[in-house]
């Protein structure tokens, strides 16, 4: 069912390929996680440091209620969307990368 299984000597079995692959994947994940953690930990900090600012009213909500109760969800969806698009692009690039590496090696 799968395409031709790669041979032991192929480029994709090299240390170089795996290292680069994991590094690029981790970098993407950490970037997205930072955007999320920034807001996740930043919001309590803002509540702590600037309580009056966060208590101002926006359409009946306090600002901090609006952010946490409503806006937080779409924000996370955007991060997820960006991550998926980027990680699929990354995977395609890796496939190309592996094929090229094979050519070079053989």
């Amino acid at each position: 069912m799968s395409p031709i299984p790669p041979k032991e000597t192929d480029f994709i079995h090299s240390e170089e390929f795996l290292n680069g692959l994991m590094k690029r994947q981790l970098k993407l994940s950490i970037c997205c996680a930072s955007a999320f953690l920034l807001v996740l930990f930043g919001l309590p900090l803002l509540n702590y440091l600037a309580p009056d600012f966060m208590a101002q009213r926006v359409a009946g909500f306090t600002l901090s209620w609006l952010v946490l109760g409503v806006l937080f969800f779409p924000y996370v969806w955007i991060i997820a969307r960006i991550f998926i698009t980027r990680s699929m692009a990354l995977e395609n690039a890796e496939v190309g990368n592996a094929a090229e590496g094979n050519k070079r090696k053989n």
Partner: protein
Amino acid sequence: MDFSHIDPWILAFSAITVVVTIVMGFRSAKSSKSASDFFVAGRSVSVGWNASAISGEYLSAASFMGIAGMVMSSGYDALWYPVCYACGYLFLLLFIAGPLRRFGAYTIPDFAEGRYDSPLFRRIAVCFVLFIGFFYTMPQMKGAGTTLAYILPGLPYWVGVVAVGAVITLNVALGGMKSITLIQAVQYWIKMFAISVPVFVLLSLYGGYGKNLSLNQSAAQTAIVQSTDPASLARQPLPEKAPKDDAWLAPFGPLTTKAVKTAADALPADQREAFIKENKKPYALLYTFSLVVGLVCGTAGLPHILVRFYTNPDGVAAKKTTMWVMILIGIFYVFPPVFGVLGRNLMPSLYTGLAGVKGTDAVVLRLPTLMHNGVLGSILSGITCAGAFAAFMSTFSGLLVSMTGALAHDVYGRMLRPNSTPEERMTMFKWCAVLIGSISVILGCFVEPLEITFMVGQAFAIAAASYFPLLFMSVWWRGMTMKGAATGMLAGGLCALFAAAATNVSNLSLDKGKMGEIFAGFAPFNKFWAAHPLLRILCEQPAIWTVPLAITLMIVVSKATRKTVPTDVRMKMLVLHAPEALGLKQEYIQEHQGPAH
């Protein structure tokens, strides 16, 4: 028994939900034939179905009823629960979902064994699956018992537990993962419908979300809010027990400042004010951080959720599924807090009720009955009751599948009889489902006095400090050894368990009912907590130190046992991380039926 005051609408809607579940279970059971169908739904669940099913499984009684009740009783701080329940999936998506699926196991213990080539580690992992699973099952059972007792007043608590337990056990035993997937997906949409429709009707009758929220006046803005037109919105006077407006609306309210308040009460009267002023907010900030870490990491480490990723055809589908889960769950979680806000304005009498279905937890079920139009109110109340039923049924079925899988696949199929045929394992799956279902029902009958949030909190605390560090580190660090993984996981999980239990038993000893008597021996603890509010916070919400502890131990012990790193770790990592298009994927567990792959 007197059945005269039963609302026929409520009864009808609840009955329909249960009947639909049973019928669907029987129908889809016919198509579940192979062992792979039972354990991982043939690895062929499409993104849309799987996302609905995961969402249906995840939104438990605690989400459906508990969050609304908590927002009503504690205000702003309780909003962290829905947000973190939903956003924990982002961590799953970023770090775990894709690689875990590529590994191609059946259960998390499979992964644990396969990654470290260690049967011993499988046993440890199985224990954690069962342990976390039962902790999570008990609150679902309690939800079933109390809701049925609410719908049919006079019915004893255990009837609901036994009825729901029996229905779900039957479904799981008949069709395994494949039929449960279908049922859970439908139950998600029942829940979504049941929470959103009443909210829209109520908001159109009693004013918008923001408008209702604006009736709560924060300390600084009393004047501004009073200038809006208060006559158009009716608000019942709040009873003595309800938190004051500014404490309820602002961050760092009753939920996060409890430890400092208790500590202040133990001090001489003249020091109280200064103590609260100095410590209240920093401690509340710490509490919030720890709560957030625990919920986010706990979500990413719940075994019954993780096992669902194996039902996807591949890693890309696993990632897409996670994203849709976040959207489906996120939309759902906007609604329960609305119930809490409306309940505070319209039905403050719930504040005086006791805990459980009589108190604020009942706000979702009770609020629709307020409507002047009796029939509409009954119909909406019936819809929310049906949603509550769907909530604990779907979560329990998911837990049952994952625990049964652990027992039938890991214990029977891998440890006791590794040579058993897929057919034998399938039969075993059915028997294990009955066994675990029965244990759950028996446990459920005993937990009536315990609080739902207490039990769910325990499960999250343990998962956050054991499975999350394990998966995260196993996927991303090549130097991990079995000893390192096991040490970190056990230490983190046990510390979280004992820390959370220590504060919980002392809380229970203050209970005025039956629980207070059982746990009376722990009452002296409370003096200690009053003297050490910081320690109390760190024990009540242990994640902020248990998660780093687990990860640190994993690194230190792995470095010390460097020689035992699996020799083929590079190949394992390649399978976890390389895109499927490279043809490296090999299912760790394969059932050889039909043509061999």
